[in-house]
């Protein structure tokens, strides 16, 4: 109990991931968005013309796009209020010693060096819009793995970027994919060559550090045939009073018999509107796994997708969403089966409390060609009090006669009988509730690397204690 309080104070005292570091911003594009801003971003980045062309085309798309026809009301977003690009450090630093001290302090608070020593095979850390610290361990280089920020990749590996960029998620896809493609900055680029299997996960920390700054990372992961990689993305942000927009795009290509796992615990502070497009193209006998945790944010819309394009391709999404007071989590998964013998699995665990709203929104589609496809969908929700609400909105489409989709959904409150059982062994009501909730999300947390599982544990405990009611 005493220890718990200490832990809590460590987190709440200075809201562990909610501090702000004073760094002099070197350059920003000012508030608002127009074609000149897009050109300026490209110019500041010294980009080749082909990328500027992609950006401009996407910007035109964005101007034509309409708000999503489903999900949360986003009409409060005012695109003129955001700053679309901030450059905080002139060049990408290659050595830790060259990184400015204020930025280093932030990293120290995040414990990134420690984490690196323990787990990282390579680090790419994003501070504001520019990657200032990037380290690739020799081992990766020897294997021919490319791991850098996406800006660098545009210059260093133009052939790969041109081949894959905006192909899985085209700029025409949706409003926020268009926006991202027009103004994107940072994000990670990973290329794993044919047959290379990485046993250690690759990790990256992201951070928004300026009020009202939109963050538009662009991540592109290419896992070549028979290769395998586990990428871990960590997101934390400071607490601010005004809305801040985050619209990332993650594109992944999984080759034949290749494997990719993408793990996230997204913990945006409660003023962030997070609208992310995550999609993977999975080739023959390839396997994609999204491990997706959504805890923070004011509004969060995220539906990691797999396009199972090759015969025997497999897609998995295991996700949790936790909505507390003032939060709307509209999350889920998409599985599009385009080929025979493809399989998919979705496990979604949702929790809401003190007036939070959590929705599962998902789609499973078996096209005509997806003969003998199989899908299993499991969505479970725990509603912790009478103030909170949840909806389950699944769409299942089968266009052939040989495939099938299983769908299971449960919505429940914490069982009084279970509470009594745990309390009869000495746990307080809060401890008992926490234990039941931790058990409920266990199918998710057991998939995380140890360090992340511990962090998730702390975050959930914090969420459970922090809220009123």
């Amino acid at each position, binding site marked *: *109990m*005493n220890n718990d309080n200490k832990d809590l104070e460590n987190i709440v005292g200075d809201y562990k991931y909610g501090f702000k570091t004073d760094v002099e911003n070197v350059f920003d594009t000012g508030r608002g968005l127009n074609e000149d801003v897009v050109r300026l971003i490209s110019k500041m980045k010294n980009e080749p013309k082909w990328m500027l062309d992609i950006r401009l085309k996407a910007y035109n798309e964005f101007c034509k796009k309409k708000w999503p026809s489903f999900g949360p009301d986003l009409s409060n977003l005012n695109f003129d209020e955001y700053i679309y690009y901030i450059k905080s450090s002139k060049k990408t630093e290659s050595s830790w010693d060259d990184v400015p001290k204020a930025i280093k302090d932030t990293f120290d608070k995040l414990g990134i060096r420690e984490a690196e020593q323990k787990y990282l095979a390579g680090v790419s850390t994003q501070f504001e819009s520019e990657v200032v610290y990037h380290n690739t361990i020799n081992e990766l280089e020897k294997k021919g793995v490319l791991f850098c920020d996406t800006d660098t990749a545009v210059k260093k590996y133009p052939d790969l970027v041109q081949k894959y960029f905006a192909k899985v998620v085209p700029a025409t896809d949706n409003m926020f994919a268009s926006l991202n493609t027009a103004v994107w900055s940072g994000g990670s680029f990973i290329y794993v060559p044919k047959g290379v299997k990485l046993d250690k996960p690759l990790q990256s920390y992201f951070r928004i550090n300026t009020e009202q700054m939109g963050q538009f990372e662009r991540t592109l992961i290419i896992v070549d045939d028979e290769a395998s990689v586990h990428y871990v993305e960590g997101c934390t942000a400071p607490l601010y009073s005004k809305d801040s927009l985050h619209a990332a795009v993650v594109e992944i290509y999984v080759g034949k018999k290749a494997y990719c796992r993408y793990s996230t615990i997204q913990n945006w502070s409660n003023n962030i509107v997070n609208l992310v497009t995550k999609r993977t193209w999975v080739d023959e006998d390839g396997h994609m796994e999204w491990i997706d945790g959504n805890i923070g944010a004011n509004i969060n819309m995220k539906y990691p997708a797999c396009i199972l394009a090759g015969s025997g391709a497999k897609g998995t999404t295991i996700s949790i969403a936790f909505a507390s007071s003032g939060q709307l989590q509209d999350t889920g998964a998409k599985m599009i089966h385009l080929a025979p013998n493809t399989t998919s699995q979705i496990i979604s665990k949702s929790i809401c409390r003190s007036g939070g709203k959590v929705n599962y929104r998902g789609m499973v589609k078996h096209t005509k060609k997806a003969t003998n496809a199989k899908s299993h969908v499991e969505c479970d929700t725990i509603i912790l009090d009478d103030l909170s609400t949840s909806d389950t909105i699944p769409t299942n489409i089968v266009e052939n006669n040989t495939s099938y989709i299983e769908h299971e959904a449960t919505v429940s409150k914490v*069982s*009084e*009988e*279970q509470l*009594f*059982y*745990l*309390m*009869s*062994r*000495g*746990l*307080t*009501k809060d*401890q*008992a509730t926490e*234990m*039941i909730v*931790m*058990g*409920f*999300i*266990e*199918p998710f947390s057991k998939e995380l690397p140890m360090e992340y599982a511990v962090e998730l544990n702390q975050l959930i405990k914090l969420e459970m204690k922090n809220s009123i009611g």
Partner: protein
Amino acid sequence: MSKLEIIDLHVSVDGKEILKGVNLEMNTGEFHVLMGPNGTGKSTLVSTIMGHYKYEVTKGQILLDGKDVLKMSVDERSRKGIFLAMQYPSEIEGVTNADFIKAALHARMAENEKFSLIKYIKSFEQATSQLKMRADLPQRYVNVGFSGGEKKRNEILQMKMLKPKFALLDEIDSGLDVDALRVVGENVNDMKASDFGALIITHYERLLDYLDVDKVHILMQGKIITSGGKELIAKIDQEGYDWVKDEFDLEDEQSRPSGIIGTCAVKESLGEKND
């Protein structure tokens, strides 16, 4: 030595009175057996002592070393030394037995007390083998996928780990085969000590063969009708409960009129004897 006292306890469920003035006193170092036909309130009594939300105490007292148990929350009762081995233990998905019992032990530790993980693991392993349970018990989720007998043994394992002052065993023998019954009986009996007592509910004499019983109480129609020594067990095993009715002049509950309009009902409502 600790003392548990139940004084004139009246308990209702959904407005229906089940216990109608139970008196019982026990000390640590003693094993008491609670017997009685089905539906007479044995489970109600032990669940009420633990503080189950379904049971409403309308009158009476429960005291643990003179302290008012009814004012304590369920978890507080547990930390003060009361333990209920349940007839139908809950299943908790995703929570391992090891984490669960660790949390329960943490909950009852003094502020500056240190938790020894090594000691914990050793005592867990020891209890597991003493109860002849599967070695992977610590990693299994609490009661999930357990057979009826495993669940019962898991209750006893928790009891061994948490070392309460008073254990209330609610039909801990049901669903156990002959060998498991012996294992459970012996384990419970081994705990008997000056700082441990138990109130045992059972329908079968067999469990009691393994236990060093001090007192037997017969609960019928919401009251403890008579108490005695081990000889009562044998008598009930041979003759059932009818003799109790005769000897203590109990009415047959079923024969009472149930809301029939007429003289009988009127008489009853006026509190007159109805025969």
